[in-house]
């Protein structure tokens, strides 16, 4: 880093974060280069979006996951959902707002990224669901959380836009293509229709199922394990705890869910799996066909969501160039098959579907145009136009001269209405050419304020 040429300043590093409901991922991008930020404990590319309050500090990621079994009441995950209401929850003996939990995870991501990169990182690009509309308070809360995490310049990018910039298998997408992004995350399902562009993809429409993610498949599977393993689970339950609210009951429930997840993950590469909940428990067997049957209703809802979205946005299925399945959920082997059968659209896959969003955002960044705007320069001096408006303020009715137009001394340039109702003309003292307008018609303007720039 110190070997960089002195004449060219080092590219500003940017921390790119896909902040997911159940898992998050980050990449540091500086210029054309990128460094992934793996979870420090497991070395995995994605970080569990989880926090644990140990009474003194907030543990995040895998460290939090590991402690959840010992003190489940101090553990929280899926707090991204809470950003909308931002009402506080109890962890251990303290209350935390969801935005504080987001801060904790972003702080950890930033520290790890700075450690890997070797220098402070002040800029961030965070992907947010397409459902975060421009005035959605969750945008401001995400920005505030990132600022609180020490990232002073924070940009947001809609998740499907980022995803469509991820490298796809096969030929690249070209401007004008219509793409359906099918994002089956851990916690939610998001669908979006995009019109592909050079530097930006336009979101034509989007839809979300808040209760339809990989975790919901896990829960169904856990339910099945509970039902089928009744014989060996029930004694365990009754020996562990007296009441359903006992931490031991929570712990056992978590363990079953983790077991279900482990089985599901194994099925993404093997047609059949056999595993043990406890060393002394009987073997539990699950096939891909079992999983397909279990997940069918849930996946059926995602397909309906997509067809509804196409209908709502007025896009005919034949106009869609490709459907891009992303998110951890699409690792289930049944998904690609289902999409092909039910939507009848060409499916384009990405290498690591759970990292598509963060990788896409990292690819978008260097191609999204420079973020430096130089001041306008001109060989001629720029003259600000200000006026001693009688009474101090007025309503700007309209400009009487357009930018680029020349005028002579004494010519009325603009007309204002004073609070008394009187119309006054703002006139030129010396000849010139109007250059840029600084106040728009309808604006309240004050005396001595610069209303326009002119050239002699």
């Amino acid at each position, binding site marked *: 880093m110190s070997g960089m040429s002195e004449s060219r300043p080092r590219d500003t590093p940017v921390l790119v974060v896909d902040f997911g409901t159940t898992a998050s991922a980050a990449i540091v991008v500086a210029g054309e280069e990128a460094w992934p930020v793996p979870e420090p404990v497991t070395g995995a590319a994605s970080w569990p979006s989880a926090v644990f309050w140990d009474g003194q500090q907030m543990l995040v990621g895998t460290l939090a996951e590991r402690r959840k079994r010992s003190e489940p009441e101090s553990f929280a995950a899926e707090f991204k959902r809470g950003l909308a209401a931002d009402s506080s929850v109890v962890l251990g003996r303290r209350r935390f707002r969801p935005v504080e939990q987001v801060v904790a995870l972003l702080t950890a991501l930033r520290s790890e990224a700075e450690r890997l990169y070797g220098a402070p990182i002040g800029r961030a690009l965070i992907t947010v669901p397409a459902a975060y509309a421009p005035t959605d308070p969750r945008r401001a809360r995400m920005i505030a959380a990132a600022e609180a995490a020490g990232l002073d310049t924070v940009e947001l990018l809609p998740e499907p836009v980022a995803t469509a910039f991820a490298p796809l298998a096969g030929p690249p997408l070209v401007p004008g293509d219509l793409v359906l992004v099918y994002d089956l995350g851990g916690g939610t399902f998001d669908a979006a229709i995009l019109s592909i562009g050079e530097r930006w993809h336009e979101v034509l429409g989007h839809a979300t199922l808040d209760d339809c993610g990989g975790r919901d498949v896990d829960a169904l599977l856990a339910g099945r394990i509970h039902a089928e393993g009744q014989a060996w689970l029930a004694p365990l339950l009754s020996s562990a705890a007296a009441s359903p609210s006992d931490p031991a009951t929570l712990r056992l429930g978590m363990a079953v869910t983790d077991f279900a997840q482990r089985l599901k993950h194994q099925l993404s590469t093997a047609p059949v799996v056999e595993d043990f909940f406890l060393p002394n428990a009987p073997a539990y067997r699950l096939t891909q066909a079992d999983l397909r049957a279990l997940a069918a209703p849930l996946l059926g809802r995602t397909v309906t969501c997509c067809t509804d979205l196409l209908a709502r946005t007025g896009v005919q299925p034949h106009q869609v160039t490709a459907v891009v399945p992303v998110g951890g959920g699409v690792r289930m082997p049944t998904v690609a098959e289902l999409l092909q059968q039910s939507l009848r659209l060409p499916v384009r896959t990405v290498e690591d579907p759970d990292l598509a969003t963060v990788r896409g955002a990292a690819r978008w960044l260097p191609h999204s145009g420079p973020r*430096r705007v130089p*001041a306008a320069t001109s060989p001629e001096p720029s003259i600000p136009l200000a*006026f001693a408006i*009688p009474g101090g303020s007025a309503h700007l009715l309209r400009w009487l001269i357009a930018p680029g137009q020349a005028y002579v001394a004494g010519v009325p340039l603009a007309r204002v*209405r004073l609070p008394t*109702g009187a119309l006054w003309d703002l006139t030129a003292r010396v000849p010139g050419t109007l250059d840029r307008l*600084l106040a728009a018609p309808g604006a309240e303007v004050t005396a001595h304020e610069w209303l326009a720039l002119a050239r002699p």
Partner: protein
Amino acid sequence: MAEPILVVDVGTSATRVALVVGDQSGLLREPGTASLVWPSSVCLDDAGYLVGTAAERRKRAIPRRYIDGPRRAVDAQASMWLDGREVMGGEALGAYLAAVRGEARQQYGADVDRVTLTTPPAYLPRDPRRDVLVAAGEAAGFSDVELMSSAVAVALDPETGGGLPGGALVLTAELGATWAVSLVQVRGNHTAQLAQETSAAGNELDALLINDLRSEGRTWLEPLLAAPGDAGLRAYYEAIDFVRRLKHQLADAEEVTDHLTPITPPYRLTREWLAAFAEPALRWLAASCHRVLAAAGATTADLGAVVLAGGGARLPMAEPTLRAALGHPVRRAGEPELAVARGAARWSVGALSRGMPAERPSWRVEPVAWDVPGGRGELMRWLVGEGQPYPAGAVVARVRVPDDRVFDLVAPQAGTLLAHRAAVGQRVGPVLVASAAKTPKALAEHPPPLQHRLEVAGSWLLTPDRQRLVECDGAGRFVRYRLVGDPAVTGEFIPEVGTAAPAGGRVFVGPDGRLCLVAWDSESWFSLWDVDTGKLLTRFREPAGASGVRVNEIEWRLATEAEGKAVGRYRRSTFTIWDLRTGDRVDKVSDDAWTRRNPDYSSRSRGQGFGTTVASPDGQLRAAMLEASDGSWVLLVHDIATEQEVFRARETPDRRALAGFSADGRHLLANWESESRSTVDVWHV
């Protein structure tokens, strides 16, 4: 060619219209009746709105779709019901104005796009009813809608507003359907309404008259009013018109008698009865005048004129009531109902003079402008503080655009940021600007404009607060002062003189900072005047006369120098010292070296704002006056940070030269002093 302006005084029941083209104005006649008074009426026919006489003609056929004018609904901020249809006052007014605009186009031969609408005096700034009027004007197709208070218009009526000095207070009493008393300060384009009070007195008077008509004509009127369907309403409108007509006739008759219809009995109204009916309203009028004066902190003695206007001004008792209440003559035009329109037309004739020229840009400041990507954004923060320098390529500000990308606004050249011209968190775009200091090189390339040059046969002084320039006649006959940036004289002091001829005078700064004129005459009387109060502070006589006068501003003493006795080949000067607080003689010395030993005694003020080396108030520029070897004086201005010269000026005065900056730092001054005259140059920096 000047743009035509339509002037519309929309009254509750009558409207007046004038057209102004350039410096010509004339009242427009209503097309239906050729009268200068247009009925304000509106009728909502199946085909749309009918207004004015057209509405009046239809009111007998469709009385439920008729209203005598939309103004009352605008005043009350309520809607009107026309045969079951709810109509907003503003909407009906828009239709009315559109018809007036159409008629103006007929008469003028071209579109009129600008209108002046008069507002009741009660529509104060920020009253939402003003927005209704503006919207109605815009809905009628006018691109520029000006509002003015009818009280201001009355005060400007050329028929009654003559001979008033600038700043005169005019009390206006407008007696229409509503009665309003207002106090207006007449000052050309800045004429303003200071206070007002409004009452529904006019309406109440009509209501009393109707009630009288109903009780007098109980036997024949009530059956008419009670008739079913439209007939009763029709009779009611007829009755209103009838009493109004009688009321107007009493303006020039003691008694009137008329018939509502050819077959109904006569109804008689006398001036005496009318006076009795009007008595409560007139009592309000008299009391209101005093309340309005008091609200503006004025008394009857301050009044320049009292103007009575509006149709109600024809009430025989109105003028005597007002005269008695105020003890002031009352002005009333021949056609008082046209006063508002005439005054508003006069105001509109002056439209071209209501121009505000751009301020002179500061010589040292230049804008730095960035085009915000996408045209708009939110200013996140300034990264360079006000007054701070920045290098080339520095990020000066950061903006967030609506898609949440964040842009750095970069300065291509090094400079110093003088002022942020937008606040953090503010919406910005399409351009964001900041003020930056020009580089010394740019300053040197473009010298500051000489704003004005002032000359006096005497001396100049810059007050210690550096806000005023004081001109003192060489003989002490007058002292004039001005604000530094403006050549107009803002004040003058002329000391009283006796029989002796004034011989000399200079202004000094007294120990308490007050400006004092030291003046002396041919009989060697010395007078010390306080310039601001005009008070004579002290007076004494030096019988020996004086060839020189010096003042010590610290000790507040004056020394007169007299040519003393000859000692050998020399004449030794004698100095007499006077205490300026008391006028007493303190000391008398003969000493050639006295002036050298007493440097605090000076022939020019030392406490003033002019000096040989001065710094600008912001500490960025230094101006120094140097005497060159050829006898000329050079004003040199340097940028303090870089020590680079940014400006110079040269003159050849006989005596000396001094430099100064105004307190706001916007003006650089040079005082070139010669024996007979003294010049001040003022540059805008």
